[in-house]
């Protein structure tokens, strides 16, 4: 049984095909990257997997079960959690309250029924992920990098099995990027499988086991980072077609 599989996933918006019969698989414990030029359909894939959009056809299989048709909260509760390309913190709540919200998800409540570990877990995750010590300050006081970390921290509270990270490194400084890469590695070593969309290819290549390349909603390449960077289709997608440029 495949751990996670996307099979013939298709989504169009009017005449525009955003995701075109996309297929790929994930093994437990992997870090898999999804890359592609702007508008390739990467975030749409995340929206389809996480239930924020429903596909026109195709399947998303999680441990053999087709999860297409489930709502976003149901998908989060079976262990697939996501972050967003544009950070979505609760700006008028404190850092503590931002993390506390995730403690009211069904998955968390089921796992921790009867114990009183919510606060301990919040403190542990906040410390582990490097959030400011003062958890009582408003999220609106945090910088872009800290907000992104807060977004990830909130999702980690739900203890996901598969984590979908949508451009987690965008807008981060070099130091923050290095820290977050270390954190992603650590989360992965702790047993969480990770699917990650990222534009910073150099950084992604350092942590990903496998890369899926998408262009115009179609998969154009898949393989290890080494294989993907040497793929002609990928080069064409990112740099354009040499012959076509010469002709124009």
């Amino acid at each position, binding site marked *: 049984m495949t751990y996670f599989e996307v099979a013939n996933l298709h989504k169009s918006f009017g005449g525009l095909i955003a995701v075109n019969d996309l297929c790929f698989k994930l093994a437990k414990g992997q870090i898999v990257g999804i890359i592609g030029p702007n508008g390739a359909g990467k975030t749409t894939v995340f929206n389809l997997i996480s239930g924020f959009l429903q596909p026109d056809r195709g399947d998303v299989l999680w441990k053999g079960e087709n999860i297409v048709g489930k709502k976003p909260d149901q998908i*989060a509760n079976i262990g697939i*959690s996501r972050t967003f390309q544009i950070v979505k913190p609760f700006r008028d*709540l404190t850092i503590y309250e931002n993390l506390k919200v*995730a403690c009211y998800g069904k998955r968390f409540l089921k796992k921790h029924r009867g114990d009183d570990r919510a606060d301990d877990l919040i403190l542990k995750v906040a410390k582990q992920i490097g959030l400011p010590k003062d958890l009582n300050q408003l999220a609106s006081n945090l910088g872009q990098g800290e907000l992104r970390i807060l977004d990830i921290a909130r*999702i980690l509270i*739900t203890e996901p099995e598969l984590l979908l990270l949508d451009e987690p490194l965008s807008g981060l400084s070099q130091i923050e990027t290095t820290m977050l890469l270390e954190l992603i590695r650590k989360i992965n070593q702790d047993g969480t499988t990770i699917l990650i969309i990222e534009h910073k290819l150099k950084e992604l290549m350092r942590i990903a086991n496998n890369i899926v390349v998408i262009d115009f909603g179609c998969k154009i390449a898949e393989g290890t980072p080494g294989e993907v960077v040497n793929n002609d289709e990928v080069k064409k997608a990112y740099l354009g077609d040499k012959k076509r440029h010469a002709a124009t």
Partner: protein
Amino acid sequence: MSPENKKKIPSVVFFLLVFTFFFSIPLFTQNFYYLSVFTTVFIYIIFATSWDVFAGYIHLMNFGHALFVGAAGYLTAFLNIKYGLSPFIILPACAIFCGILGMFIGLATLRHKGPYFAMLTIAFAHVAHESTIIFSSYTGGEEGIAGIRTLTSSWIGDYYFILISMALIFCFLLLYTRGRYGLLLKAIDQNEDAVLASGINSTFIKTMTYAISGAACGIGGSLFAFSLMHVGPTSMEQVMSTTILIIAIVGGIGTIVGPFIGAIILTLLNEVLREVADYRLLIYTTLVVIIVFYAPKGAIGFSRYLNPMCLFDSFGRK
């Protein structure tokens, strides 16, 4: 004692004083007029706080809250006059009826946002209002239904009955919004996608809160009908919905305490301005404009500047 609990002491003392004052009014005066003014204050507190628990926290403007006032009023008249049931049965019946009504309206409207949601709430209240005219053989048409018996055998009994009901509803709404659901409502207001991604069924929370808002207002609507001994289409008019909304905004939405204070200020002001009947509406609306401009968080936001003790900090943070 934790610092958080220490901060709450001034607020608790304030409310103990306010409720002590309310409970002691009949000891000083048994004048029907004064008691009925305060009874109206208590009923409007129920209307405004029940509006606030949903609309104030999620910032979805409910312009049709009077629907619950009228629905509960007519149910009260029906159960009291036709079947002679006691208030102890009618009040829970109204709460359940309006709660279910709120749940269905919530399910139908909550997928819409902003002006579309507001328009739908107006439409539902308007349909209900027009129905009272169309089905006049059941509802008494424009004249409504008179002859509802009083809550108790005395005015003072009625006063305490309504005061205690208001106090219980106020405490319930305060506890509801200061706990898990208040936090989730604020989170849904700020970013519903992130709430969903955390594994929380936001539709359920919104619908449940809308039902609670309806149920609480249903109790208020029933008490309103009992206190007037009459129910009519005016209880469902747009003016009623707008009055509730203004009270909540003037007090400070998303706080529960704000609409509590707003109801006291505006209902008493309304009575005081009866002396200058011609200018009443002018003064009333000018005050609303001033508050909206200079205290956009409502009276409760304004009180922070006046009160060095930050009296309401632990209650109204937004």
